[in-house]
Structures are given as structure tokens and as C-alpha cells.
């Protein structure tokens, strides 16, 4: 009798838990799913309220095609975004792996000073130094160039990624290094052949954060890129949504938002544990 009661209670608890979970999941996923489904409506239908969200007058990729007809076209902005994000990933990984190794394994003058200097930049909002960054880029001849934007994004990534890499190198036992040194490895081969495979998870984590950061950043790109051919996706899509290219084509906006969201979602789903690891490192330390 009591057994049956507790069985029933368990089932009721489980039912309540899963209905809560499913309802909450639907609420969080609905806006994303709604948008992605709506993009496949013909342009005419996409102008109407999305009820229901899926296409009712036939499947179409018209919204994606029209995207290319605004300004310099979506494809140019997408290329800019890809270039900026990939370069930010490569450069910030290179710089932070070197720095992480240096901070972890060597004792040199001003080591602690430099480490604290780099980490403390996280306390200062980059929004407050955008104007001088604009002037510095102009001085360097990087004004209105994607390379200039990459430099800014790399700098913004450094405190987090150097902290991550320093910890990753710290976790590698010194015996491994000593053994390799006995075998005659110099610093560079040591780093590339011996250490890098051991800190690989950290590298994936900082690469993921660098990509998401650069791909999604809006304010710096809005301020620093003045030429339409240099717009990244967020800036381009905001120009389109503001009616800069005539009447707002909401079908095209949805298509653009989908193009912006999907790479992030795929990368996150594929590399989820690296993402969570990065969050944990930030949260626990």
C-alpha cells in the first residue's frame, strides 16, 4: 500500500518535472524556431504576421536571395564577418598560447606586473575607450579596415584567454617538460610538440569564445567600420532593419538573423563541453 503510494508520488513528481522542463524548453527555443521556419516563406507571406510560423503558401528561399540585393549585399557582410571571426580566433589563440606558456613557465622581470596589467583590462569597459581606439587605428593606417577590427577584438579576448592558457600550462606536470628537455627539445619544439597536445582543450575553449565574441560584437563594428563594404553582419542587418535600404523587408531580416544565429548554435552544440568548461573556469576561479 505504502509502496504503491510512493510509486504514485514518484510518477507524479516525474510528470510534473518533465512538463515543466518541456514548457520551459519550448519558451526558450520558440523565438529561434519561429524565425528559422518563417524564413522559408515567400516574401509576400513573410510580410504577414507569422501565424502559423511555417510557410503556408509554399516553400521558398526568396528571403535569402533578396538579402543579396541590399547595399553591397549580404554575402559581402558575411565574408567580412567570417574573415574577422576567423582571424580573431587565429590571432588570439596564437598570442594567448605564447603568453600563457611564458607566464606559466618562465620567471622574468615584470612578469607579475604584465600578467596583472593584462588581466585588469577586464575591469575597464571597452565602450569607454572606443573614440581613442578609433584615433589609434587611424594613426596606424588601420582606420576602417577589417584588420583593425580584428586587432581590437583580439585585445578584448586576451584577459580571458591568457588566464585560461596560463592555468592550462600550469596544470601540465613539469616532469614531462624535463624529460623532453633531456631529449634535446628546445623551447619552440617543446611548446608545439610536447605542450600543445596537452593543453588542447584549453585552446578549443578560447577559440570558441573568440569566435562567438567576434561574430556577435556590434558596437565596435558599428563605430569603427564606416564603409558599407566593410560592414559585418550585425551592422549590415541593423542598417537593413532600420529601413536604410527602403521599406523594411522583414522576411530578409529573419533570413539575416538566421544566418547570424545558426553558426553560433551549431558551434555551441558541437563544442558544448568546451564552452561550459570556459564558463566554469570563469566562475570557479
Amino acid at each position, binding site marked *: 500500500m505504502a509502496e504503491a503510494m510512493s510509486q504514485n508520488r514518484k510518477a507524479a513528481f516525474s510528470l510534473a518535472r*518533465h512538463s515543466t522542463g518541456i514548457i*520551459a*524548453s519550448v*519558451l*526558450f*527555443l520558440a523565438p*529561434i524556431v519561429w*524565425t528559422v521556419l518563417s524564413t522559408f516563406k515567400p516574401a509576400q507571406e513573410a510580410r504577414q*504576421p*507569422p*501565424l502559423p510560423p511555417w510557410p503556408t503558401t509554399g516553400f521558398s528561399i526568396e528571403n535569402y536571395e533578396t538579402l543579396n540585393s541590399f547595399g553591397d549585399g549580404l554575402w559581402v557582410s558575411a565574408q567580412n564577418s567570417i574573415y574577422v571571426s576567423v582571424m580573431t580566433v587565429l590571432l588570439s589563440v596564437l*598570442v594567448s598560447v*605564447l*603568453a600563457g*606558456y*611564458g607566464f606559466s*613557465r*618562465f*620567471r*622574468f622581470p*615584470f*612578469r607579475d606586473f604584465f*600578467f*596583472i596589467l*593584462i588581466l585588469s583590462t*577586464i575591469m575597464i*569597459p571597452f*565602450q*569607454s*575607450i572606443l*573614440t*581613442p581606439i578609433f584615433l589609434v587605428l587611424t594613426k596606424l593606417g588601420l582606420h576602417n579596415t577589417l584588420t583593425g577590427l580584428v586587432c581590437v577584438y583580439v*585585445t578584448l579576448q*586576451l584577459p580571458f584567454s591568457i588566464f585560461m592558457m596560463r592555468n592550462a600550462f*600550469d596544470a601540465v606536470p*613539469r616532469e614531462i617538460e624535463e624529460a623532453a628537455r633531456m631529449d634535446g627539445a628546445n*623551447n619552440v619544439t617543446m611548446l608545439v610538440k610536447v605542450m600543445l597536445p596537452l593543453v588542447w582543450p584549453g585552446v578549443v575553449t578560447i577559440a570558441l569564445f573568440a569566435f*562567438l565574441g567576434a561574430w*556577435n560584437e556590434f*558596437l565596435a563594428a558599428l*563605430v569603427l567600420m564606416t564603409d558599407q563594404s566593410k560592414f559585418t553582419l*550585425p551592422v549590415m*542587418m*541593423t542598417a537593413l*532593419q*532600420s529601413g536604410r535600404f527602403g521599406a523594411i523587408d*522583414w522576411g530578409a531580416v*529573419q533570413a*539575416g*538573423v538566421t544566418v*547570424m*544565429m545558426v553558426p*553560433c548554435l551549431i558551434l*555551441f*552544440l558541437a563544442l558544448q563541453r568546451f564552452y561550459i568548461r570556459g*564558463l566554469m*573556469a*570563469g*566562475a*570557479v576561479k
Partner: protein
Amino acid sequence: MASITTTSAPARARTRTGVSRRQWVGLLYVLPAVAFVTVFFVIPLGMTAWMSLNNWPLMGEHSFIGLDNYVAILRDTRFWNALRFTFYYTVIVTIAIFAVAFPLAIFIEKPRPLTNLYRTAFFMPAVVGFASASLLWSWLLNVDSGLFSPAAYDLGLTEKKVNLLATFQPAFWSIIAMVVWKVAGFTMIILMTGLQSIPQDLQEAAVIDGAGPFARFRAITLPLMRRTLALALILSVAGSILAFDQFYIILRGGPRNQTLTAVYWIFNQSFVSFKLGYGAALSMVLLVILVALSLIQLWLLRKPEGLD
């Protein structure tokens, strides 16, 4: 991210010059990072301070004017309004985020069937950028082509289609809803790490002692989560004070400039009116607020005494 600890370097007994020669190489490894931070952060930071003391138009010569920009800030009622709105938004959105994220964190804390799936679903909006999320919601909130107004009208909840973005209250709460949707999953994960770090036997001992769920939450969960709570709180507060994307993209600061945030006002002064010196002075004010916040964070996140 918060505490800065430097571990001891390899201080091995070797010949003195050999060691220091080898150790100096470390400087070469960190040099690129130091160069980036110097050129694109430290120098601009110094320039902000210097520019704030100048009348600095985009074109033409700049001139030193001392503290005049700061005096002007005192009289700039629109800046103070923006700052007041920013704080108001920060308080409301932080409460809203925690009200959603804390129950979710408790919901996904223990490994049970499908928990990982739910956790992933709740977290998905967090990896979408703020600009994408804002563009998405600006469509959902649109009166003619969007979702909410037409749906409410079709269901007979409203007599006509209501433009949610036309007046302050609905526009403001729409932004809150969007930000909670986007950020709650992130805060949830941080709070979850705090919950999971609480030793299970403490909770069990409290159950044996007859403590109810509420008493346990108050006496065990909250105190032991102090550092995690502080971290989640500060991240939320700092992020909200710097809010820009959603107000620019969805509302353009409207209706009637009521949703201009601090960063938005600085952006307007610097890059629309091109008063670079004045923008720099405003930036210094913002910077001081954020640094103060970071110092509070370091204090809140300090390791409890006697524990490592």
C-alpha cells in the same frame, strides 16, 4: 577570472646565469600580448583621460580646456536621465534574470533523465549574439509583421493591434523579456556550478535534523553560494550598465528618448555629434562606476577567511 594568483616559476638550482638567460626568454613569449594590450587598451585609456580635458572636435585642432567638460556634465540633464534610466533598467533586469535563472538552476542541478537536454535548450539563446537577438525580437515586437500584437489581436485579447514599442511601459518590459530570454540560461549555468559545489552530506545532515526545504535553502544553500551569487550578480549588473545593442536596435532610444542608456548617450555625443572630448569625459564617469563595481566584486569574491 576574478582572483589573480601567480604560481611560483621553476626556481630550480642551476647555474645562475644559465637560469636567468633561459628565464628571460619568457619575456619574448608574452611580448605580443603586452603589445596588443598596450596599443589597443592602455594607450587609448590614457588618451580618454587626456581627451576629456580637451575640446576635441572630429576635424580641426583640439584645445585644452581643463575640467570644463566635467563641469558641463554636471549640467547635462539628459546624461543624468540616461544614467538614471540605466540604473533603473539594471535593477529591474537583474531581479528578473535571477527570478528566472535561480529556479532553472535548481531544476537542472541534479543529474536526472533528460536534464542535459533541458539544460542545453535553456542555454541556446545565450550563445546567440545580442545584436541577433535584438533583431529577432524587433521583428516579433513589430506591430504589423510581428508576432505578439497580431497574436493578441487574433485571440481577442486586444481590440486593435497594439504597437508595443510606441509607449514607454510596454517597450521597456518587452526589452526586459527579451534580455531575460537571452541571458537567463547563462546565469543559470553559473548558479548551477555554485549549487553543485555544496557538499551533499550537509544537506542530508540538515534533513536528518528536521530542516525543511526553505530552512535548508536559507541556512545552507544561500551562505555557501555567496561567491557564486556575487559573481552572477556582478556579471549581470556590469553587463546591464553597459547595455546598448538592444536599446539601439529595437528602440533607437525611443519612445521620446526615454530609453537612452549611458553607453547610448556617450555613443551619441562621440559618434553622432562628434564631441569627442565631451564623450571622453562622459566615458571617464562610466569607467569610474565600472571600476568601482569591479573592486566591490573582488571584495565579495575574496576567499572566505580560514578556507583556501
